[in-house]
Structures are given as structure tokens and as C-alpha cells.
């Protein structure tokens, strides 16, 4: 493993046990997260972004099963860790914030109570220390009057405030890895901006690597160092953010970028990618994207393409065979 890599995932799959047998949602995904970088995962709903992140945290619930050859986090392979061992890492070395700030905090406990838990659990602090550190964290994420917010219940806070609390809670133990699962989707645009800015500045201050899951390409453009594009449970492209926007390789990535509106561009009708994401029970044979792909050939219909290296990036498409390096 290279020195600058914080997280290295090898061959991660997530399957669900159903009445008809095993249903594979995520298949053989491998990727690295470098120290201090923001890695964005993009893709349509249901393409497996959230499941990938939950699998890293070890939070896939039955009937789901996550398997990986290796999940190296900061030098230790956590793929075979017991629940107890993973528990000690969660909220400590790696933590997560979620899409729904309104429902992600327990409505029946005060903010302080929920913040204190992390310090008590991972840092074995006493009540006074917990309180001091929690209030410090609330202040750190830009919450005004943290002493009074500490005593409040979630119901008294706005969505943006609650997401700040979630971020404060997730960063309490200075995690090496923060997974943010669509942290701004449920928020107003202005609040979105504030939360993204906050995450950027906190990352610099704490040197935390961030996996940011989103389906919003403007968020990607603003936040990402590198981007993973997922489609139907597979990584279809992986590239630096500039390269990706400048020259998307995979037809799906291209479709995604084309379906956004650019300022100043004359646009009669919004471009879309025809078709819908395939259902898991009936994945198309060959390339999973071929039914929606304008370049599909007979080979695409019958054979699964592998991820190949092209110009220092990865893409899962036959069109780039021969230009590998």
C-alpha cells in the first residue's frame, strides 16, 4: 500500500439474501482514498453508492452481506474485523453523516446528550470533560450559542443546524475518514453552500479524508479531488475531477455531464440519458449500460467490460481498449 493512501478497498461486493436466492447489488469494486482528499461518488439513485459506504463502516444489515478481499484503513485490514472491533473504529477513526439531518438525530435526547456519547465511548471522558468538548465541537462547526444548543432537543433546531450538529458529532474524535452520504441533498441551496464550505475548511484543519456521496454534479465540481462514477453497482469510471469534466470517457459519465445545464448556454430542452437504471433482478447481459448507450455494439451486449487504465484513470468500456497504459 502506498504511503499516501488512507483507505484501500479491494473487490468489495454487497449481496442481499432474497427469497429467490442471492441478489448481488454491488460487484467487485476496488478503489483507494488518499490522505486528505475528497473522493466523490456519483451515480443515480440505487446504483450502490450508499451501500458501498455502509459496507466500509461495517453497517450492512441482514439480509445484506458485504464481502471484500481487503479493506485497508490506515494500515489495518478491517475487512475481517468482528462487530466489536469495528464498533471501536466507528465514530472514532471513521465516521459518517447522512442525508436526512431532520431524522438522523434522536428526537428524545438533547443535542448535548447525543454529542457526549461519542466522547464517553471512545475517549472515556467524564461528564464535565464530555460537556466541555461537545460545546467546543459545536462552536467548531460554527453553531452560535453552543452552550444553549447543547441543552436543546433536535426539534428546536433547523435542518442546517442539525446537519452541523451531525458533522460536529462525526468529527468529535478527529476521524481519519469521514463518509458523507448526500449531506446537503435535504437542505436549502444557501444552507447547502454553508455546509459544503464548512466541510472543506474542516477537512483542511483536521486533515480528514472525505468520501462524499452525491448525485449533484455541481457539488462534485466544487468539492472533489477525485471522482468515482458508479452505475448499477459497478464503478464505471474513476478520474481526477478536472479530467472527468474536461473529457468524460465513459458514455454514462458523458450522459450525466450533458444532462446538466450550464450558465450562458442556449438550451431548448434538457438532455437526458434515455432509459432507466436496470433492475437488480434482471441485469442486462454484457455491459450493464448497453441498453442506454448510444455506442453499444454486439460485443457490449454479450461481454462484460473490465475496468481498464487509460491515461492514469480507470474506465469500464470497450471503446478504450488499446489505448490502455
Amino acid at each position, binding site marked *: 500500500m502506498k504511503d499516501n493512501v488512507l483507505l484501500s478497498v479491494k473487490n468489495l461486493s454487497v449481496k442481499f439474501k432474497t427469497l429467490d436466492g442471492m441478489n448481488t447489488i454491488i460487484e467487485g469494486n476496488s478503489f483507494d482514498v488518499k490522505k486528505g482528499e475528497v473522493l466523490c461518488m456519483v451515480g443515480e439513485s440505487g446504483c450502490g453508492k450508499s451501500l458501498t459506504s455502509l459496507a466500509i463502516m461495517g453497517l450492512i444489515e441482514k439480509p445484506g452481506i458485504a464481502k471484500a478481499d481487503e479493506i485497508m484503513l490506515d494500515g489495518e485490514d478491517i475487512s475481517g474485523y468482528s462487530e466489536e472491533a469495528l464498533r471501536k473504529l466507528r465514530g472514532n477513526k471513521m465516521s459518517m453523516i447522512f442525508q436526512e439531518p431532520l431524522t438522523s438525530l434522536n428526537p428524545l*435526547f438533547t443535542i448535548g446528550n447525543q454529542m457526549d456519547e461519542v466522547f464517553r465511548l471512545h475517549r472515556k471522558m467524564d461528564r464535565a470533560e464530555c460537556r466541555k468538548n461537545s460545546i467546543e465541537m459545536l462552536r467548531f462547526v460554527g453553531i452560535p450559542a453552543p452552550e444553549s444548543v447543547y441543552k436543546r432537543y433536535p426539534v428546536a433546531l433547523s435542518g442546517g443546524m442539525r446537519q452541523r450538529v451531525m458533522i460536529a458529532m462525526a468529527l468529535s474524535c478527529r476521524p481519519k475518514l469521514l463518509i458523507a452520504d448526500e449531506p446537503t441533498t435535504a437542505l436549502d441551496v444557501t444552507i447547502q453552500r454553508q455546509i459544503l464550505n464548512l466541510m472543506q475548511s474542516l477537512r483542511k484543519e483536521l486533515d480528514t479524508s472525505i468520501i462524499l456521496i452525491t448525485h449533484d454534479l455541481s457539488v462534485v465540481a466544487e468539492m472533489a479531488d477525485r471522482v468515482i462514477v458508479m452505475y448499477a453497482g459497478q464503478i464505471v469510471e474513476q478520474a481526477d475531477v478536472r479530467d472527468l469534466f474536461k473529457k468524460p470517457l465513459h458514455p454514462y459519465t458523458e450522459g450525466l455531464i450533458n444532462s446538466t445545464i450550464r450558465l450562458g448556454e442556449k438550451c431548448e430542452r434538457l438532455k437526458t440519458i434515455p432509459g432507466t437504471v436496470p433492475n437488480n433482478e434482471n441485469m442486462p447481459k454484457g455491459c450493464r449500460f448497453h441498453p442506454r448507450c448510444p455506442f453499444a455494439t454486439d460485443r457490449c451486449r454479450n461481454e462484460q467490460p473490465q475496468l481498464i487504465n487509460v491515461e492514469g484513470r480507470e474506465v469500464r468500456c470497450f471503446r478504450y481498449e488499446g489505448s490502455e497504459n
Partner: protein
Amino acid sequence: MARYLAKRILQIIPVLLILTFIIFCLVYVAGDPVALMLPPEAGTEARESLRAALGLDKPFHEQFIIYITNLLHGDFGTSYEYNQDALQLVLERLPYSAQLAAVAFVASVILGVVLGIASAQYKDTPFDLLVSALSALGQAMPGFWVAIMLILLFSVNMKVLPVSGAGGFEHIILPATTLTIMTAAKIVPLIRSNMIEVMHQDYIRTAKSKGLKNSAIVFKHAFKNVLVPVITIVAMQIPTLMGGALITETIFAWPGLGMLIYRGVANLDMSVVQAGVLMVAFITILANLISDIAYCLIDPSIRY
């Protein structure tokens, strides 16, 4: 909080008034107590004079006003059967009912919460299926049948527990068991389904992502949320156990409120029925108030 409480307590007054009216109406149409009090050969004149003495010849609204006025003076009427003040009778029987209800309620809540949480945790395992089957069975079995089976097993065959009556602790075991089976069977599936629902909430996922132990997640984060929908239904078991245990109390000859009301109905002893039912209604209102206060303490959004 204090204002809310004051409001809730004031609300009790009209509820009690309406209840009194309904109970009075029901008793009014139930039958003529004079027919029961006098021997069949008594003449019309004797009947009329007794009616007049009891105030039963007056029009309906006048009778009601007299009834309410008497109630406010603490006069609940006299039992024809026991020849004793009706309220006195009810108050004498109340401790017995309270004792039985307390034992059954505590046992049901403990059993219901423990089995409900456990079967939600081990959802779809053989243990969960067994608990679900048992609670369905518990709800399906009629109370009187359970009571008779328990008597047959423990009193008649094994001869370890008394058949009926009140006395030492051994007397309370069988009636309390009967009531516990019926009540716990209601609480278990309630806790189980609410627990399963709560465990899928986002804040539980947050708690897991913080690295909390499963026990902390279940007993702290989930359980308090389970209480919110469950608390009223559980609190409402109190009046059911206190006054609604008519059949169980009667079978075990337990001298409680239920048996008193049952005998009152059987003998058309209306003052006793009225006083007894009013007491049960009052307990119901009280239980309701307690559950509302408990809500207030648990859920901050109600306070806001």
C-alpha cells in the same frame, strides 16, 4: 408544563359529568329495582309508596339532578343487597382490586417489555416465532377458560394453590397469572412491532455509526422512542385490570371491584353498580392523565 397539567386536570370535570350522565341513563333504562326489592305478591300501593320513598316516581331530569346533588355530597346511595353505603362498599373493595391489578400489571409490563424487545432483536428466529405464537394464543384464549384451566391444574390436580378467595400471597397467584397472560399477550406484540419499526429509523443508524454498543442502542435510543406510541395503551391496562376483571375476580371469588359490580348487576343493585362504574371511570381518567404526563416527560416536542 404546569399550564398543560392544569388544563388537563380541568378537562377532567366535564368528562366526569358526561360520564355520570351516561351511567345514570344506563341504569335508568336497566330495569325497575322496586320489582326486585319487594316480594312478587306485594300490591300496587306498596310498590308506589316504595317508588315515592326512593324518588323513582319523579321525572327523569329531576332524578338526575337529585342524583348529582347527592354525589356532590358524597352520597352514592345505599346498596339494597348489603344495606350499606354504596361508596363505602366500593372503597372497601378497592384495595383488593388494586392489589391484584398491581401484581398483574407489573408482571405484564416486565414480561411484555422483555419478551417484546427480545423477539424484535431476534426477529424471524424460532424464538421470535414462538413468542409471537404464544402471544397470539394468549390473546385468543378467553380469560374464564384460562382461569378454569389454571384452577384445574394447580388447585385440583396438583393441589398446590388455593381454588379461590383472598388471603395470603398464594391466593393472588392464580388470578394474577390469568390477568397477566391476557395483558402481557397484548403488550408483547405491541412492543415488538414498535421496536422493529424504531430500529429502522435514521437516528438508530446514526447511533450505530457512532460506535455505540447494541445494548445502548436498544435500551437507550430505541426504547425511549418505543415508549411514545406504547405508553397510552399500556396505561389503559390499569383500569382494565382494576375494574374490568369482572370474570376473573368472580371465578376466583376475589372480593374486588369487578366482583362487586358483577353482583350488583346480577341483583339490580343499582347504587352499587353506579358507584362501582363511576370509580372505574375515574380510574380510567386518572390512568389517561398519568399517560399524558408521561408523554410530556418523554417527548420534548409535546412540551414545545
